[in-house]
């Protein structure tokens, strides 16, 4: 096993490099699930509350798509609610943790040429990947362990708690393997991030379709396997072994692929490009478009797919209305609006939260250009800094509009087909566009960091994490209202259940414009460069 020489030493190196990052991920994840478990335990303290939860949410396909199959709803317990509320998103977060960290320690290192420095030492070919995989896998298991301990401490049954916590780690481990393989296939960290994220989206969607149809499709997705552990409801432990075997198999394939390629290259060979710049590659905007177009296209496609999935269950929302008049009453009382409209308003808001990720990523592209030193070449030419940053912000804003439109059009289109109501297309596009002020506030926050305090630019991801937690888990976590109201997404009118208007969109737009102006003002006044 000479190809693994140095793995132990490199493991310590990975831990040292990311000692803060790993702790933030592990403690952050464990805290979010523990706090959720605590608040659910408080809210559903009585048998009656548990049963009404299950009655309300049990058969709703929209919730099945975004919560899970609802194992154990026939004999409900508080544990089943915990699974329904936290398992799916916990697993997605664990998968993302694997994707980000594994790419950071494998493909990104090769991009930076630091890998060469390491590999020129007495270090086996597979040692850097092996070290990253082991450390990150251990981190995933620690999250599971902390989650299990906190569930048991709060008072959830021991066996189910172990199963639920293990399902988080299991998905994390599978995606450690998925990312290790993806990092061998493509030639850059960005491409690897895109491909790994695509695998995650597909795994999520495939499982959602399987869960709604109660069919075998769930077995095509690692998320489906981990859900099938049936925590708190007659546990099936062998599915965890399946996850572990697949994870190990993927890592082994990654090693096999790595032996077949050169350091720094992907398995797909590069092609010769153009010897001169085409007309569209001119000016700062042309450059940013060229740099970002692949990422934006992937986002737009992903949003369209997510929209199609959300919209395709619209008739189930409808039929549930017929089946369950009590639920219809509930929604009617809650919002005073049509249940399908409420569902679509929620859909638009959820899709907008996802587009928030694009807003941050596309805006921070400017920061990446600066940190890499490439911006010096641009600013040493006759390019005003505001024009440079403005190009990035403009492209980011345009990309957000496209992504929001794609999500809205996708949801509207599939809803129009299943409901046979063509007007849903236009309605859902309007609902999607109505979320843009909140998306632009997130973009503005990221821009402010880039323009004024580049060292703090990464904090925009923290802001996005906050609005996502509030948006997806706000009620489950029982957060105070003033805190929920901080998120711009919670201020949006619920189009199409409500009409677009009121002060909120105007105020949010004004905040976004102010943030962008401040960032353009700031970038003119600070030092540019690596310092």
């Amino acid at each position, binding site marked *: 096993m000479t190809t693994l020489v140095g793995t132990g030493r490199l493991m310590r190196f990975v831990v040292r490099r990311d000692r803060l990052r790993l702790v933030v991920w592990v403690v952050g994840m464990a805290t979010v699930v523990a706090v959720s478990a605590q608040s659910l335990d408080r809210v559903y303290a009585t048998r009656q509350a548990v049963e009404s939860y299950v009655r309300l949410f049990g058969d709703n396909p929209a919730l099945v798509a975004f919560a899970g199959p609802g194992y154990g709803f026939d004999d409900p317990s508080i544990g089943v609610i915990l699974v329904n509320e936290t398992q799916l998103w916990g697993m997605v977060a664990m998968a993302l943790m694997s994707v980000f960290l594994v790419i950071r320690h494998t493909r990104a290192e090769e991009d930076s040429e630091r890998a060469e420095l390491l590999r020129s030492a007495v270090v086996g070919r597979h040692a850097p990947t092996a070290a990253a995989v082991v450390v990150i896998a251990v981190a995933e298991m620690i999250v599971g362990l902390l989650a299990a301990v906190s569930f048991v401490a709060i008072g959830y049954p021991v066996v189910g708690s172990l199963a639920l916590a293990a399902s988080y780690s299991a998905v994390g481990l599978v995606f450690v393997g998925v990312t290790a393989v993806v990092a061998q296939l493509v030639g850059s960290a960005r491409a690897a991030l895109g491909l790994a994220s695509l695998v995650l989206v597909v795994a999520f969607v495939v499982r959602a379709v399987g869960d709604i149809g109660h069919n075998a499709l769930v077995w095509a997705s690692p998320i489906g396997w981990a859900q099938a552990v049936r925590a708190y409801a007659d546990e099936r432990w062998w599915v965890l072994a399946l996850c572990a075997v697949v994870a190990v198999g993927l890592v082994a394939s990654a090693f096999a692929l790595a032996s077949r390629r050169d350091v720094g290259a992907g398995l797909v060979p590069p092609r010769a490009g153009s010897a001169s710049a085409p007309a569209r590659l001119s000016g700062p905007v042309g450059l940013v478009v060229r740099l970002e177009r692949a990422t934006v296209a992937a986002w737009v496609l992903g949003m369209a797919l997510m929209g199609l999935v959300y919209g395709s269950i619209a008739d189930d929302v409808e039929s549930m209305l017929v089946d369950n008049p009590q639920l219809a009453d509930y929604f009617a009382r809650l919002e005073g609006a049509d249940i399908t409209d409420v569902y679509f308003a929620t859909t638009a808001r959820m899709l907008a939260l996802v587009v928030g990720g694009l807003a941050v990523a596309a805006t921070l592209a400017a920061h990446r250009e600066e940190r890499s030193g*490439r911006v010096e070449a641009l600013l040493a030419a006759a390019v005003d800094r505001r024009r440079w940053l403005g190009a990035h912000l403009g492209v980011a804003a345009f990309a957000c509009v496209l992504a929001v439109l794609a999500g809205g059009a996708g949801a509207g289109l599939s809803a129009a087909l299943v409901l046979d109501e063509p007007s849903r297309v236009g309605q859902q596009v309007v609902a999607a566009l109505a979320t843009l002020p909140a998306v632009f506030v997130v973009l503005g926050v990221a821009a402010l960091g880039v323009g004024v305090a580049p060292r703090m630019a990464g904090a925009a991801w923290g802001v996005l994490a906050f609005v996502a937690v509030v948006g997806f888990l706000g009620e489950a976590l029982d957060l105070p209202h003033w805190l929920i109201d901080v998120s711009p997404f919670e201020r949006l009118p619920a189009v199409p259940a409500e009409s677009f208007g009121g002060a909120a969109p105007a105020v949010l737009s004004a905040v976004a414009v102010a943030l962008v102006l401040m960032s353009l003002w700031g970038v003119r006044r600070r030092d540019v460069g690596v310092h």
Partner: protein
Amino acid sequence: MVRGVTPAIRCAGLTKRFGAATALDGLDLDVFPGEIHGFLGPNGAGKTVTMRILLGLLQCDGGEVTVLGCDPWSDAVALHRRMAYVPGDTNLWPNLTGGEIIDLLGDLRGGLDPARRAHLVQRFELDLRIKARAYSKGNRQKVALVAAMASDAELLVLDEPTSGLDPIMEAIFREHVLEARAAGRAVLLSSHVLAEVEQVCDRVTIIRHGRTVESGSLDDLRHLTRTTIDVRVRRPATDLAHLDGVHDFREHDGHLVFEVDGERLEAVVAHLAPLGVQSLTSQPPTLEALFLRHYRDQLDEST
């Protein structure tokens, strides 16, 4: 140095701090049109920081700086149409080809001369169709050089432009820098290749700890440093070692070898003449000796 023209670069008492660290501490620098100006100093002396201030990427904390008669911070964009820059560590967009990057940067600078672009690409033997991520360090450097030198800039700011180039490419680079000077452009050239500086530069500025320690033409500077003399004389010359300005006196095989301060050279030669000189070789100080003298002082200080 007094000339009747506006300097292309003029820095006086330039200071720049990064938090507690002082990068520039009263730096002076003058570069004139039609001049290739060597910019020397040990690593971390502040050369790149100075160049970034000249480009308006960093704002100085104190002192005066003008580039082509303008303020590099507030007039950055207008200025950059008239100057070109080659960074020391060239980081290019990995998914763009060399040709695309040259055209993009030329376009952003306000256009480049297509004939000169083609000529430079041919001379530097650069394959334009390769994506930047696949270029070697030397080829990345060539992309930056072609982009800068194909422009009509009045001022070239070159930060270690030949790092990573092979000797043949270095020679081609020197040729083109001299061409630029002949066309009346000003060139600020930072380099650790002292032979290159000696060959092409009209004047040099040596900085240390963010401060100018020496500036002038190579002849001026040579005058300030020591010449090595190797002489054979008929009569004993024991008192030579004690003469003012003579250093490192040693004797072997009947040769007397010593170093003389530039300003004492005349007096020492006058002293030698009556001793019956049989042979004499003198070695003028190299730029390397000059540079190392300042560098050594620094080493002595730190120990």
